[in-house]
């Protein structure tokens, strides 16, 4: 069952230099109980996309298109109605647990607040729910933790608290914006493990935003690769790693450290992402693409089209045989172009 449907979403920021279109015509769907990974480098519009869904964009931003949660349209919803959804139907986990909890309030206060903003329960019941929530994310002696302040907890513990807080009201959609980026590697693994476990339990749709393909491989069912505000490839996670279709995806895969390339320099995609103030015409990856065709540099940009039987979609003008041939090289992980 499809829970989240994003259709042709455009998020534009007004800036002093002109409008910046951070999300440019993105469409995607996530089913209940599924995890969609959104991958892309910094500035590709991942976070703008998630904040658009949450309705947390600054006032300088405008959102066009459609975001539906179940049957409910979120774009154009009143501030009041959006606020009622935030934290209850839609919850979010942020990147840096060090700065995302209020330093001057106790963990207990912040958790109880999260409950009581959406549930008509007594303080005592809210406290009970908070303790259960902390226990569910594997925090030892949760009752004592309620009295502590964020600075008294480690980064991993804080992220667990954030996750517990997000799940307190049993959201239908959980957006996790790089939840492991700010953590050290062992803690990352624990948090990912926790998210995998929770995913089975809470039956929420999860949108996991990351720039780490390793994380995607671990947790996601489906992946959308974003580049410069657009989705360039969408695929079930196995397909993406087995038969990557888009040259940008190849670049991302090639830049992963792998066992077979020990001792070599990691691959780097030449060039830099385009300025979103004046994006290049046609495919936005064209200026950095090794296999670029003349047609790639002219509008309209290629749109997502299905490839193969695996359910992948790609926005690329290369012919299928080239993509299969090149993609296979990167999938095997032997090539550093």
């Amino acid at each position, binding site marked *: 069952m499809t829970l989240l449907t994003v259709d042709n979403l455009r998020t534009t920021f007004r800036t002093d230099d002109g409008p910046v279109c951070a999300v440019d015509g993105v469409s995607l769907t996530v089913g209940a109980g599924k995890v969609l990974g959104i991958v892309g480098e910094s500035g590709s519009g991942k976070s703008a996309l998630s904040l658009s869904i*949450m309705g*947390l964009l600054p006032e300088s931003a405008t959102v066009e298109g459609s975001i539906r949660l179940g049957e409910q349209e979120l774009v154009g919803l009143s501030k009041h109605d959006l*606020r*009622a*959804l*935030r*934290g*209850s139907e839609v*919850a*979010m986990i*942020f990147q*840096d647990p060090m*700065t*995302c*909890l*209020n*330093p*001057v*309030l106790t963990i207990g206060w912040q958790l109880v*607040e*999260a409950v009581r*903003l*959406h549930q008509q329960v007594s303080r005592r019941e809210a406290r009970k729910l908070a303790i259960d929530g902390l226990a569910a994310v594997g925090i030892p002696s949760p009752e004592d933790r309620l009295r502590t*302040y964020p*600075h008294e907890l480690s980064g991993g513990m804080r992220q667990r608290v*954030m996750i517990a*807080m997000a799940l307190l009201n049993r959201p239908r959609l959980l957006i996790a914006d790089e939840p492991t980026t700010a953590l050290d590697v062992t803690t990352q693994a624990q948090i990912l493990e926790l998210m995998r476990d929770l995913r089975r339990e809470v039956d929420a749709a999860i949108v996991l935003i990351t720039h780490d393909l390793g994380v995607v491989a671990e947790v996601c069912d489906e992946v959308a690769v974003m580049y410069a505000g657009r989705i360039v490839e969408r695929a079930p996670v196995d397909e993406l790693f087995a038969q990557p279709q888009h040259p940008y995806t190849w670049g991302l895969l090639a830049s992963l450290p792998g066992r077979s390339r020990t001792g070599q320099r990691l691959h780097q995609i030449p060039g830099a992402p385009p300025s979103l103030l004046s994006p290049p015409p046609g495919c936005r990856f064209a200026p950095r693409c090794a296999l670029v065709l003349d047609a790639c540099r002219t509008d309209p940009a290629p749109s997502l089209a299905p490839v193969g039987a695996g359910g992948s979609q790609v926005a690329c003008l290369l012919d299928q045989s080239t993509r299969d041939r090149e993609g296979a090289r990167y999938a095997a992980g032997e090539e550093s172009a």
Partner: protein
Amino acid sequence: MIRFLIRRILGGAFVVLVVTLAVFVLFGPVLTWKSNITPARLYAGKSPTAKDIEQVKTLLGLDQPYYVQYAYGLRRLVLGPSQDERDRVCPGSTAEECDQLLGRFGSSFAKQRSVDSLIAARFPVTLSLAIVSALIWLLISIPIGVLSAIRPRSLGDRMATVFVLIGQSLPVYYIGLLAIYFLSYRLGLFPLSGYESFAITNPWPWLSHLLLPALVLALAFAALYVRITRSQMLDTLSEDYVRTARAKGASEPRVVVRHALRNAMLPIVTMFGLDLGLLLGGAILIEVTFGLQGLGALAVEAAKRLDVPTTAGIVLFSAILIVAANIVVDLVCASLDPRIRLE
């Protein structure tokens, strides 16, 4: 908490000690060395003979080496005047009479009174002015600062900026004179000048005398505090935890008051404590403009008359107040921010 307090108090005592040394050196050896003004000569009255001066020197202990004088001064500051000194300076008078003449901060030559009693007479005026004024400026500036941070560049924010500019660029004596002329003289809303003591049965005379000077003083401070509150709030509102609060579905007033304001208050509290400490040492311009007989006015008077012990006493007293204000600020900050207790 107790250890924190003890450590801060010991630190404060050390600062005061350093200040006493600086005050002693500046108002003692340095002053005598660079000018003809010796304390004994000032004390001895008009055109004294050399013998008079010698007598006074012995009386006040000024014939002793400097380090002995300093040690006596310090002892007097901590323990009060010694019996020996009482016997020397005011023989035959009762303890109460002697207290008028001798005190921890020394004695004024010009007034033949202890600096303690002079400060005690003036301090209530300054204290009242500082408290009433501080209340006014906090009540004005924090709401305005918060509101303009919530809607930066809005009409209200721009008006607040104009207010800040006016408050900061017009000197208090100018606004003060205008206020006296229009509000007190032309409209008769307030007394022209002076001070009434506080009475719990009828505080109105006290308040009516203080209101205008406090308001004018508050205007200057409010301008500064609006600016700080605004910038602190703007910073805090862009913090990640504020976004978390919004993501939880907290309403905007809740986000601002419960999540942002307390974090934004810390630097404001720090500055407020220091400003209040400074003000308690006397608000010279305001006191002179409004004819309030406070510490600031006393300091000006004393400086004009070369009343060295009074001037030095007020400097020392103000320094103690500022140190005390700092300790209170630390305590308030620790109660606002749990992270401070550990440090």
